């Protein structure tokens, strides 16, 4: 092939998206702590529906919320906290009737595997050997909001300020600890599995010191695939979906709580 021809062919390959007959595409904006769970269920979802392609947009719930407010073409939103979903609902950007809580998580403090630091309770974070602690940026990252609530309730949020490093999402917080850049960090218990060789749980903050970590899902009002998005929510709350979530360490939503 001549060089010119090769460049032309390459140009076409890059510019033309692959055409699939009768293809349906759905975009899911998903709190990044749910990454593996949604990917697992997503494979199952696509297998049972030929021609359906799912696109994932992972990030912090606050970041995803702002994208939806800015008109991002998203069909389904899965948040790691109620606050971001509440704000979207107040602005009329999600279909209220579709909103469902489908899982619950637990906050934990981790340290690097092999760390010799004795971090067994919140007060240990104030010790001199703990130089840096990573928390999600409470403005946009739910795990940071839960960490802030928990640390405030034990009076440590203000004294720990000089040590805090803010992460853009929970997996970045996980990464900082795994890389050994910081001594400790706040993540969810389910995140530890993603880097199980590099991090270990140090202690779990008392569960009455922060609001329950519940995951709501809802169809975005501007969605062009509302039925498909609803079908994914149905999968999340189905027995299959709950079993998959449970295998990854998520808890079922609190009894009687639907949204």
């Amino acid at each position: 092939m001549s060089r010119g021809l090769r460049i032309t062919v390459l140009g076409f390959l890059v510019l033309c998206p692959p055409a699939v007959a009768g293809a349906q595409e759905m975009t899911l904006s998903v709190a990044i702590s749910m990454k593996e769970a949604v990917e697992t269920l997503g494979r199952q979802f696509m297998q049972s529906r030929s021609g359906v392609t799912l696109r994932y947009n992972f990030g912090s719930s606050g970041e995803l919320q702002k994208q939806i407010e800015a008109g991002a073409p998203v069909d389904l939103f899965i948040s790691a906290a109620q606050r971001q979903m509440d704000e979207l609902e107040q602005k009329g950007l999600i279909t209220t009737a579709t909103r469902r809580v489908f899982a619950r998580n637990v906050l934990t403090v981790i340290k690097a595997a092999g760390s010799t630091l004795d971090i067994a309770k919140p007060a240990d974070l104030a010790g001199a050997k703990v130089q840096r602690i990573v928390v999600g940026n409470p403005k946009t990252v739910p795990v940071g909001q839960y960490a802030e609530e928990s640390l405030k309730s034990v009076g440590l949020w203000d004294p720990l300020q000089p040590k805090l490093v803010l992460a853009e999402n929970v997996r970045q917080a996980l990464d900082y600890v795994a890389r050994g850049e910081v001594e400790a960090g706040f993540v969810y218990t389910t995140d530890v599995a993603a880097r199980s060789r590099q991090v270990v749980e140090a202690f779990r903050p008392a569960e009455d010191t922060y609001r329950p970590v519940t995951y709501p899902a809802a169809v975005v009002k501007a969605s062009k695939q509302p039925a498909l998005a609803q079908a994914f929510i149905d999968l999340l709350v189905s027995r299959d979906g709950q079993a998959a979530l449970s295998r990854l360490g998520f808890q079922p939503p609190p009894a009687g709580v639907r949204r």
Partner: protein
Amino acid sequence: MSVEALSALGLSIRVAVVATLLDALIGIPLAYLLARRAFRGRALVDLLVTLPLVLPPTVTGYYLIILLGRRGWLGAPVYALSGWSVAFTWYAAVIAATVMALPLLVRTARAAIESVDRELEKAALTLGRSEWRTALEVTLPLARNGIVAGLVLAFARALGEFGATLMLAGNIPGKTTTVPLAIYTAVQTGEMGEAVALVLALTALSCVVLILAGRLGARAA
């Protein structure tokens, strides 16, 4: 403008000034060597200095983490000896900005030095000046316009650095949040007023730098 925005602006200026000074210290001698000396590994040095210009900043940031992170090639021994790590400090922002801006200075200054008439250098050498004094008294003054232009470009690049800074220095308000990072955070959190203020401030600052540079160039010409 909020306290955070002002602190981001102050930090950005401080980081860009220090990074530009470091670039001048490293970049001008380097540009001279690349332009005037044939030495072993010249092509490699040229390649390494230029890479940050063509690589995505996040790739450069990743290399910096591998090098300077607490478990990095350089970072680990430093941490073992001193218990201190550069990551997530404002020094990290300076290092990221310095590395990202260096190729702009080196390439511009090198081209200026290469265009200096070698006959003038030879005359200085014939008159008994050492190569060192010839470089300082003949070559570099004649290449001044190009060097100043390179410094201005480096300063502007340092002022706007985002990707490598975010990776090595993080985004810690009051410590490592420079203006580009503060704009990113403000947009993400929906604080549009804050974002606009910072965008205008950075635009104005960049304009001032460019106008000053233009005047300097006009006077030197």
